[in-house]
């Protein structure tokens, strides 16, 4: 084992002499250390189940139609304009296949095919329209992508039932669990870092607003309207997000930490129903932090409880060292490391932009910025043939659904995209090349409404892109 790990480290890093090589070999040895696959299997089952619940909720609540069929226009992601909503029958079929993929993942039936299908089908849906972006569904996409490459069907799966090989080797490398933990942990860490801002810490916003509006909750409503409660929950939430991963990683604090995590997410689910699946997903995926054999312990207790005498399946064997060639292991570890580095870099990309990210929203998405802002906007476009000509007012709801309008009215990139929609539509109607300016106002975390977009800029001429947007007006410092 040790020799192989050293040789892999050498392959990966070159023949670096001395302590560094020893360090990397120890790291690789740890990554490859065989552990029980039951925790990973439980992760797979919980993940598939949550996915299935999400799909069923989507269908039952009519969101397939509301979000993907009713809108005439969709806001594509850059480079993904080819991802379009299917016709009605296609969207329903898409979701039906997604539900089947969830079942396949949960049951471990043709797992690789199921999880690959899940990733593709789920991510396709998420890519159709930028106004439907949700942090937790981005997490689901990322996790499902990772899961494609992980053998989470070694046990507790239909695949394992039909595969003698799986029974022979019911172990997985510990690195698999670490990778999943890292991906889940990043959500909390970046969520916590994002809370370290003056609004959250020194004005208890937006929790002050949200808790105040939950003031009619039975029994504790009066408490929620107290300002000190908002401060306590703001600071408590930041500390929770920033430290929970540490407590979950430490074996002695793990049970308490998970208990607190469950209480935290249950409380948020109760107080903020708009969070939807987020609390449940996080309660489910954080089980990965428990010992690799926790499901076995659970089964053991169940058997004891019902007085069954059969011994539970035990984890006994170590994986064969020659399971995969060195270069494959090296490539896998290097790829995982690069993937995680990207996951660290993406949430930090907002530092490349000037201004306050919570106001400009440049680099806001894909960064685990959850529950940080209460923003509402209003946009009216002024369309004219030239700056001196009389402008005609155009309202976004002439093109978009109410849900899309609500979302786009405070996001500069979507305000720009809608301006282009107006420009192109007028051109198609034969009005020629129109100039489109926006009167866009946003109220943000309790502040008075302020202009978000420079009203003098002709948005019809502005090209979309990832560079800084000079046409976004500065963040209003004054608090309401």
């Amino acid at each position: 084992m040790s020799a192989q790990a050293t040789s892999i480290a050498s392959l990966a890093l070159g023949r670096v002499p001395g302590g560094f090589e020893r360090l990397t070999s120890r790291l690789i040895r740890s990554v490859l250390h065989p552990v029980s696959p039951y925790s990973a299997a439980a992760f797979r089952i919980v993940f598939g189940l949550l996915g299935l619940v999400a799909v069923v909720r989507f269908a039952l609540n009519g969101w397939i139609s509301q979000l993907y069929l009713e809108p005439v226009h969709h806001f594509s992601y850059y480079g993904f304009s080819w991802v379009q909503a299917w016709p009605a029958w296609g969207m329903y079929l898409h979701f039906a296949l997604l539900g089947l993929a969830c079942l396949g993942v949960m049951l471990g039936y043709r797992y690789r095919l199921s999880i690959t299908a899940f990733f593709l089908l789920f991510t396709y849906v998420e890519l159709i329209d930028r106004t439907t972006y949700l942090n937790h569904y981005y997490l689901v996409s990322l996790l499902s992508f990772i899961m494609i490459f992980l053998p989470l069907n070694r046990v507790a799966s239909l695949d394992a039932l039909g595969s003698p090989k799986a029974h022979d080797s019911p172990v997985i490398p510990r690195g698999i669990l670490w990778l999943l933990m890292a991906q889940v942990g990043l959500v909390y860490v970046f969520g916590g870092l994002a809370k370290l801002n003056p609004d959250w810490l020194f004005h208890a916003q937006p929790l002050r607003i949200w808790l105040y509006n939950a003031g009619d909750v039975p029994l504790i409503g009066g408490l929620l309207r107290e300002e000190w409660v908002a401060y306590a929950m703001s600071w408590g939430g930041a500390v929770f997000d920033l430290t929970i991963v540490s407590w979950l990683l430490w074996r002695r604090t793990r049970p308490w930490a998970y208990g607190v995590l469950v209480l935290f997410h249950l409380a948020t689910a109760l107080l903020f129903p708009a969070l939807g699946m987020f609390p449940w997903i996080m309660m489910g995926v954080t089980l990965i932090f428990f010992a690799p054999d926790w499901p076995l312990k659970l089964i053991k207790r169940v058997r004891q409880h019902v007085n069954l005498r059969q011994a539970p399946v035990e984890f006994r064997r170590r994986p064969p060292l020659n399971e995969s060639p060195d270069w494959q292991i090296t490539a896998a570890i290097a790829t995982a490391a690069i993937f995680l580095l990207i996951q660290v870099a993406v949430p930090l990309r907002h530092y490349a932009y000037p201004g306050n990210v919570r106001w400009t929203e440049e680099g806001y998405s894909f960064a685990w910025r959850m529950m940080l802002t209460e923003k509402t906007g209003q946009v009216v476009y002024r369309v004219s043939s030239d700056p001196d000509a009389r402008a005609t007012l155009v309202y976004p709801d002439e093109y978009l659904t109410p849900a899309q309008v609500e979302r786009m009215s405070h996001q500069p990139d979507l305000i720009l995209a809608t301006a282009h929609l107006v420009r192109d539509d007028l051109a198609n109607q034969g009005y020629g090349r129109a100039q489109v300016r926006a009167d866009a106002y946003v109220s943000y975390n309790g502040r008075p409404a302020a202009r978000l977009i420079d009203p003098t800029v002709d948005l019809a001429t502005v090209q979309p892109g990832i560079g800084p947007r000079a046409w976004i007006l500065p963040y209003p410092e004054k608090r309401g």
Partner: protein
Amino acid sequence: MLFLNSLVPSKLLHAAVRLAPILAALLLAAAACLGGAPSDKEVLIDLTDEVVAPAYRQLAGDSAELDSKATALCSAPSEAALEDTRQAWRSARASWLQTSAMSFGPVMDRRSESLLDWSPTDTAAIDESVADTGFSTDADQVRNSYSASRRGFGSIEHLLFRDDAVATVSGSLGYCQYLIALTQLGREETEAIFADWTEGGELGTPYRDYFTDRASLSLVSGDAVEEVVRTQVFLIRDIVHMRMATALGLRGDGTDLTAIPGNAADNGLADLRNELIGMQRVYEGSGADSLGISDLVRPLSEETDQRLREQLAAAIKAVDDVDGPLRVAIEERPEQVHALYDRLADIQLTLATEVVSLLGVSVGFSDTDGDTLR
């Protein structure tokens, strides 16, 4: 429990179980001791009892008066009786438009708007009916068989405010049948709305009770405060976007006076004023001791609350500052109407951004930065 047992040491679990009731009792005691700002339910009760129910009672009374005056006009046609009926129409319409800011509950469930006020009015069809010597109708027929464009205030306005009204009353049986059928339908419908709010009507339970209880159901859905605020947002959006901007030509190639109902009676300014008064009452309450939406906004932002109060007052004053009928002012004194439009747009901006944000109202779907329901 089994599951927890497998994850959490039993000592910890037992300690937590023992501590939980004590913590819960402490929390509840603290919650019970706290007071201060009014609750959603307190605001809704006041709003219903002091503003909404009285507004619908007034509407029912004024509609009955209009029906009575229309009957009197048809019994003894005269210029004085016509003027009385026109005045009753203005009063009933004023009451109706003040309830625009209260377009939730029975009035929506019953789809009363299609019976009472629909725009545009099909004046040609009405004229054709009245001119038909064999024309005959009643309230039930109007309710069940007529299109919305041939019912309600617009149709009554068309009948009452024509130049030859008195002569037509005297000379056409169909005219009076139609007029009385319309006013009778108005009386029946507005009485039914008021009864639904206060007595239960066909619902069994007074809507007031259901409505004020919906504050405590906010965890599930359908928060009543949210519905009230959303109604204000939709109303001001309709006024600013659909009516004023269109009438002033801000949305199209030129002014379009058909966007403003009430042209036959030149009631456009009065309509606007009454809609704003309704909004003001919903926001501020009916008096110094009465609660309104303002009482929910103020604890979160005194600045927003004060500004919206000022904007509502300024818009009402701007209506009063416009000389003459609105349709005339749009063409002859557009600067006055543009000033009014700006004041209305101010209200819209504050309501649709700050108030909506402070009260956590979802106008379209719902969102809390990326984690939304789904």
